[in-house]
């Protein structure tokens, strides 16, 4: 009987810690929108893992919302796709020759800058299930800081913070995507590797 009681205690303790860790995961996946002082429709640039991004497509704000996963990382055999999703659609950056094994490997992007006019660095915009490959005439994607996210010394996620801007055309219309900034967390739930 004592053995069963001990086993029950172990199971309950394990469930308690599992629940705590799940709760942390859930809370750290939430978005925290702190308005930018100069551009209040966009989130302020931060490096805390606030799960927000934003940019102006001409004068229209394209921002993360509270219901859509703000970022998904999809790794294929020779490319890493970073897709930022908001109400208006999904803006995806295709980084060539970068094949991380897991979300911790994203730290290799720290401080890197990608000129978007290179033909190998493709950018697509998906709206209403239609995907356009953007013809970029000018633009840069910069990962200002890529860091681990630790909670009580335990690694939980990776935090990607940076900026982007570009000139392109959508549906044949020239547009400017400017003041882009992102501060997103990547963990088990939004890191996908296609074998």
């Amino acid at each position, binding site marked *: 009987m004592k053995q069963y009681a001990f086993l029950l205690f172990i199971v309950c303790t394990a469930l308690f810690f599992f629940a705590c860790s799940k709760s942390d995961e859930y809370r750290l996946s939430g978005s*925290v*929108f702190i308005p930018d002082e100069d551009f209040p429709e966009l989130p302020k640039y931060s490096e805390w893992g606030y799960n927000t991004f934003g940019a102006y497509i001409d004068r229209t704000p394209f921002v993360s919302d509270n219901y859509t996963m703000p970022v998904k990382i999809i790794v294929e055999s020779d490319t890493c796709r970073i897709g930022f999703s908001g109400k208006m659609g999904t803006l995806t950056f295709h980084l060539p020759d970068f094949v991380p094994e897991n979300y911790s490997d994203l730290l290799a992007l720290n401080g890197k800058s990608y000129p978007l006019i290179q033909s190998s660095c493709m950018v697509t915009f998906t709206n209403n299930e239609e995907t356009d490959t953007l013809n970029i005439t000018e633009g840069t994607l910069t990962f200002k800081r890529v860091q681990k996210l630790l909670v009580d010394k335990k690694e939980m996620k990776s935090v990607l913070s940076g900026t982007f801007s570009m000139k392109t055309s959508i549906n044949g219309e020239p547009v400017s995507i400017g003041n882009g900034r992102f501060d997103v967390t990547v963990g088990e739930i939004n890191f996908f590797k296609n074998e």
Partner: protein
Amino acid sequence: MKTWTFNPYLRNHMKKLIWMSIFSVVISGAYAQKTSNFKIGVEFGQGSVEGDYSDKWNIRQDLITSLYDHGLFSSRAAYAQSDFFYWGIKPQVSLWNDRVNLYSGLRFTMFDSNLGDRNGTNFFYLRTTNPDAVEFYKIFLIKEETAYLSVPLEMSYTIFHSNILTPNITVSFYGKAGMEIGLSIFSKRNVNFVSTTMQSHEHEVLNSVEQPNKLYSTLYGALGGQLTIGNGIQFNVEGIIPSQILTKNHNSIIEPDTFSGVQLSVQFPLSMFIKNN
């Protein structure tokens, strides 16, 4: 915990204030002419400070969801709460047929402030000293206790008085304005981590935010009622209307907007203790 010593300049400043208040009460008393116009009493009050938690604490602001203009959310669920109580001795001089009253004395005020989470769980505190990671500590509560010794100066004006109950009992209502200036005599802070193994980082968290200001000053108003019985003893109940803390950083937990509360006091005529010949 850092040990505090009084700055000699502040100590001299405090001495001057105490002497000035005693001197002003004595001079007013001389004008009051009658010993019965001089009273001494005790006061007790309590209240709370309204405000948001101080941005000096690096707290992840992600705890409560609320709709924002564009369907986004931005409200903070970490909260700061600051309550206080005080007691003091309170000499009083009555002028102009008890219509105007001047008060001073010495007051001990204790603030009890907490920084916690509205959901009853923990908040995430950013450790700023790690340049290579976004590192959070899970914290239940940051607590601060601060005590001040202050000298209040108050003036009340009786708006209405009447012997409405019996000839020996006077009921009156008054408005009061006051200010106080004081010095911190005690301050203590502590952090409750979720994990007991993280408790060793308490000093690191506390040292990231400076200690509260040693100087403390308020400006306040109150509305009150007074009951004076036959032998001159007065019972006062007053509500402190939302008022201002004048000194910055009197508290490291909360950024105060206003404070309010209630005060009870009993005043005894000095003639009860000193016989006039």
